[in-house]
């Protein structure tokens, strides 16, 4: 029994780690621009495809540890630059307009990127060899793979690095200032555009790494993989409190636990009537319930009735 629980726990942490990395991108962008970036899921997808391209051209016979690091780094940078470009072209012109137009724009960009990748690489799933050595380990009756451990460690390292960056470096503090209060930060001389570009570099970069991890875990990638996973990661960001970086991290793991254990319990609780194919519903149900009853999430800002002056949405 403990073996089963331990196994599910590792499964949960693995997928939770991936959700957390993607959620960070959503939360950083929302915290600064109040924008739900629908195209962020596509950054996740692009990461996997970018890694694929790099592997094909640079490491046709497999990559060792050093090669893997290069792949991660290159994909991070490449997708990060794509993120910056998208922000400049499609979101920046809308910054002063209504609340929802950037979101609608991001919807269009999301469609466009999926279509572009589909044009180039085709809609069919493409196999991806894991960047981690694949070995099964048995601990206390649980079957765990080194891939899972690799993913969890990788994600934790990145989250730790991000935390240090935001807390201690000049650029990181600027980013935090901009997300607290953009106008004040501007008045204090902080370059808003640069801070926003930085956010749109780091967020998509992290998402790209998550994409590579996901492709290593499941062994496959498709142009539309970003849609559902993106939405789930967004749920994770909301769960933890949208706008809060530690919130995104916690939210990711919580969603992973919810999904894995919930899906496992479902057949047991409903006598086999509802099966594991309802896995996706957990995220949507969690999303709706949180938004309806506690929209600020666990660690998010409490927006009181009085501070919101809403006029037109779009």
């Amino acid at each position, binding site marked *: 029994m403990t073996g089963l629980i331990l196994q599910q726990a590792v499964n949960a942490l693995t997928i939770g780690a991936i959700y957390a990395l993607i959620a960070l991108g959503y939360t950083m962008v929302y915290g600064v621009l109040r924008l*739900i970036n629908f195209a962020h899921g596509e950054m996740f997808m692009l990461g996997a495809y970018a890694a694929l391209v790099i592997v094909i051209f640079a490491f046709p016979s497999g990559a060792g540890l050093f090669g893997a690091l290069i792949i991660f780094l290159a994909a991070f940078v490449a997708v990060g630059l794509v993120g910056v470009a998208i922000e400049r072209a499609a979101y920046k012109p809308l910054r002063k307009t209504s609340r929802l137009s950037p979101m609608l724009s991001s919807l*269009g960009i999301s*469609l*466009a990127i999926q279509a572009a990748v589909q044009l180039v690489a085709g809609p069919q799933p493409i196999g991806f060899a894991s960047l981690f050595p694949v070995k099964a380990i048995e601990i206390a009756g649980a079957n765990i793979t080194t891939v899972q451990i690799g993913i969890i460690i990788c994600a934790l390292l990145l989250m730790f690095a991000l935390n240090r960056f935001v807390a201690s470096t000049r650029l990181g503090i600027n980013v935090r200032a901009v997300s607290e209060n953009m106008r004040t930060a501007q008045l204090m001389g902080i370059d808003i555009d640069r801070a926003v570009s930085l956010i749109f570099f780091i967020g998509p970069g992290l998402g790209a790494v998550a994409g590579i991890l996901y492709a290593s875990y499941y062994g496959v990638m498709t142009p539309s993989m970003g849609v559902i996973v993106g*939405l789930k990661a967004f749920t994770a960001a909301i769960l933890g409190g949208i706008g809060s970086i530690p919130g995104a991290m916690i939210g990711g793991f919580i969603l992973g636990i919810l999904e894995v254990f919930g899906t496992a319990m479902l057949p047991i609780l409903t006598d086999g009537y509802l099966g594991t194919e309802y896995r996706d*519903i957990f995220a949507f149900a969690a999303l709706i319930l949180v938004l309806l009853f506690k*929209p600020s999430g666990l660690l998010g800002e409490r927006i009181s009735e009085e501070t919101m002056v*809403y006029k037109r949405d779009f």
Partner: protein
Amino acid sequence: MNGGTAKPVTLGTKLIGFALIVAAIVLACSVPYMPNYYVRVLDSILIYILLGLGLNIVIGYAGLLDLGFVAFYAIGAYTYALLASPQMGIHLPFLVILPIACVLGVLAGILLGIPVLRLRGDYLAIVTLGFGEIIRVLINNADALTNGPKGIAAIHRIDIFGLTISTPKDVFWLLLVTCILVAIIVWRLQNSILGKAWMAIREDQDAAKGIGINTTNAKLAAFGISAMIGSIAGVIFSAFQRFVSPESFTFQESVLIVLIIVIGGIGNILGVIAGATMLILLPELLRDYAEFRMLLLGLLMAFLIIVRPHGLVPRSFTPDRLFAWMRFR
């Protein structure tokens, strides 16, 4: 929606209105002689016009971004599929199913509306998105009822008092009549005091409450009516295709309908017609480049939001101005 400052209706506007009427009549008259392929395209356009008219009430008039509209489309389609096919062994006539689908649509709209009443902007959009996805997943997994991903086939044709709607041309006339009726109702709604209340809510919800509008009821009415129209479209779609599956009701489909409204003109009936026409015709004209369709549409959406957020059709192109030379009540 009022057309900007009080400019007199120019000659140019009147000419465009005249040209549109002539084009519509010519088109309608030539349908009996058109090859089936073109008629199918027209049928597609009309279905999307219908969907656009429905969603326009929530997005265009009330200003609530609903990203899960496809759910109501699905409810209408599956209602007809379940009540007029071998799936459950029930074979009700179209004229009985239609009111049932309408009622179910309204109920679904209100059910979605109630929890999102307190939500604004982006949160509202996301919850409606989630709602749409939940409906799709439910349909996909409730095998016993809906046959899951395999879908429901052998759906009965529509039969109205002995007239069977079987060819694309028959469907064209049915859709045309439906579109005209719905357009008239929507036009009346737009100009009614309820329509003005919706626009006040869209402009500034708090100020609307401040002048005594019961925003709860008004928003629920918007959701209910738009859902009903979506449901009607679903019924006709289901009977026309004679096959439904969850694949037709994805998030991407919801986005497409939003795209129609955004391209054509938010809150403008003629905009919806223009948007639907563009959305369907473009890939047809570029048939050789069919794979580029989504790419172009995505880029077009982002581009239009930035450059022309009110859509292609100018706000002043409302039926009462275009057709002012006719006696318009």
